């Protein structure tokens, strides 16, 4: 007796579902585009490192931390520990591809660099790696953004992005904030 039937209602709903699918697909395609063309991935290299001996051997010993130029590669190694980063300030050149590598000897930490897409969790047992290009110069804030204990609120470091011509590694390939 009514103007429309249950079938009519479902047909309308089906059209709406098609539209919803189109919306979701549009978003997915944009995400895939960002991955293919701009190489934007979540940081996902499953690279293990033992937190219990992190301070003893390998690349994350205390003397090996900070920014280092090795041929064309610019890598900064940073340890996140309760409740500070080591080193607390790193130097990075603007407009060059750089790699940040993080590890922790104790608990879960995480970092972001304000105003950029640099963001990763730092999980005991794994090396976290972010590959990026900094475009703006200046001191950027790099806080620990994951609860790591009672001192979490006071845990942060600085990323000092300098113009490319002011980025001068020492004879050992290192660049530190103090040297400038």
């Amino acid at each position, binding site marked *: 007796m*009514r103007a429309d*039937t*249950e079938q009519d*209602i*479902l047909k*309308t*709903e089906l059209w*709406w*579902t098609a539209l*919803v*699918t189109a*919306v*979701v697909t549009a*978003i*997915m395609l*944009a*995400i895939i585009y*960002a*991955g293919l063309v701009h190489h934007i*991935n*979540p*940081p*996902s*290299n*499953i*690279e*293990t*490192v*033992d*937190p*219990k001996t992190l301070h003893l051997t390998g690349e994350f010993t205390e003397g090996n931390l900070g920014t280092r130029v090795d041929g064309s590669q610019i890598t900064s190694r940073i340890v996140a520990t309760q409740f500070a980063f080591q080193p607390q300030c790193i130097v990075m050149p603007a407009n060059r591809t750089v790699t940040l590598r993080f590890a922790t000897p*104790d*608990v*879960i930490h*995480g970092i*972001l660099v*304000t*105003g950029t*897409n640099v*963001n*990763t*969790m*730092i*999980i*005991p*047992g*794994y*090396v976290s790696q972010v590959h990026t290009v900094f475009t703006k110069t200046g001191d950027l*804030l790099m*806080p620990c*953004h*994951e*609860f*790591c*204990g*009672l001192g*979490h*609120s*006071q845990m*942060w470091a600085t990323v000092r992005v300098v113009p490319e011509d002011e980025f001068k590694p020492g004879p050992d390939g290192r660049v530190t904030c103090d040297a400038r």
Partner: protein
Amino acid sequence: MTHARRLTLAHLWVAFAAFAIAAVLGVWQMWARSPLPAPYLTAQAYFTSVTAHGVSMAYVLTTFMVMGFGYYVAETTLGRPLPYPRLAWLGFALGILGTLMAAATIFAGNATVLFTFYPPLTASPFFYIGLVLVVVGSWIWCGLMIVAMLDFKRVNPGTPVPLAMFATVANAVMWLWTTVGVAAELLFQVIPAAFGWNEAIDVGLSRTLFSWTLHAIVYFWLIPAYIAFYTMAPQAAGGRLYSDTMGRLTFILFLIYSLPVGMHHLFMDPQQSSAFKFLQMSFTALVAAPTLLTVFTISASMEIAGRLRGGKGYFGWIAALPWDRPMVLATGMAFFMLWFGGGGGLINMSFGMNAMVHNTSWVTAHFHLIFGGTVVIMYFAIAYAIWPTLTGRQPASLRHQRLQLWLWFIGMMVMTLPWHYLGLQGQWRRVATFNYADPVIAGWGPWVIVSFAGGIILLASALLFVWNLLEFHRDRAVVAPEHPPIYALAVHPPNRVPAALNGFALWNVLVLVLMIAAYGYPIAQFFIIDAPEAIVHRVTGGG
């Protein structure tokens, strides 16, 4: 009045008492984070408070609300007594025992690990055991809901299970799937470590197991709100539900897509691979589907009501809706907040785009809007709708109920919009104090104070809500109608539905397939790569 009246009332009062306490703590936390000097502030006190706020809001309020409302729905829609009421009381008792155990541990300062845990930080084992007891109590509820539905089907062969009950059972089934992850994490990893039987923990594995639970649990909290959208709001507005079938499909989609998606909480984690993150992102994108379907179906249902009341044109029906009724008002506000919260969620789930906002105030804003906004405001509306049938009385005027809803809505918007902005600026989460001496952070100060003001409005609303509920129990309340209509009829009430829309066998099989595809290797890899463990750090300093 309903048969299981005392059972429902007991659950809901526990839920809302926990809510009121947590609201007070939440405001204090915002005060602490603002540039204004807050009293009693120490690092220990702050993280104790954050833990208590999260546990009360996310575990106690929600679990007791879902259970109490589920018992109510089972009895009122099936027209049968609840099976095994004693078991229901046992579930309640376990929940209370667990809650008290966890609360005592938290307020003694022995559980400053926040409500999402952070192994290898571990709290006192009694914190986790308390939470496990709450979950076990809710498992009893799940069993009772499933039994109630099966009993109904046996007695009424061929009759569709009423939508509200179908949705409740969908939630129960989902919750059983959901809790497997966190139960495995707690029982095999965290509790042994907390007792000192283990000195190390595989953090990558524990985070992966928790992610299994972490997204679906949100839908467990959310489904009562959606039940109200589909079955209560159209009735309150004086209309009909546009499509009963779409309601069923929506709850089925929640069941399927809420589970194999938890890894979107681990996008920024180094211990999971980009391929599996992508796979779970695809399914996360589809979680938007049930919500967007709901937007249309509920709009159409409300449109029926608006046009019946004389509304004309494309948008005229909106103005014609009876906005003075709390359920209608709350539904409108809930969808408004869902737009912002859901939009934020779309950005969070967008794979690499998550890097822009991960662990910033943006995320805090997102889930406060979706849960604290959309869901909790519907909890209020549900309470206002069913309380007269529980006490037989109601206040003479709905003025205070409307005021309370408006305060909640305004407070939530004032609090969370600045958080979105601050999150994009890089303001990070879970912090007791900021260094306002830093020039960048100093610029955030005014916005933090604005959101603090929003928090104060929210607290006022929370207290008014409890006062409003007490009004139902006062002598000055007037007698409520014996059987007020609560549930909406569909435009075309179903007289037969396919088995797929009347039960969960098919969907359980599909969930299993998806879970194996999405979580099989990501969990197995920890045993293959021999992942290094981290030494346990015990946070039990209050004792």
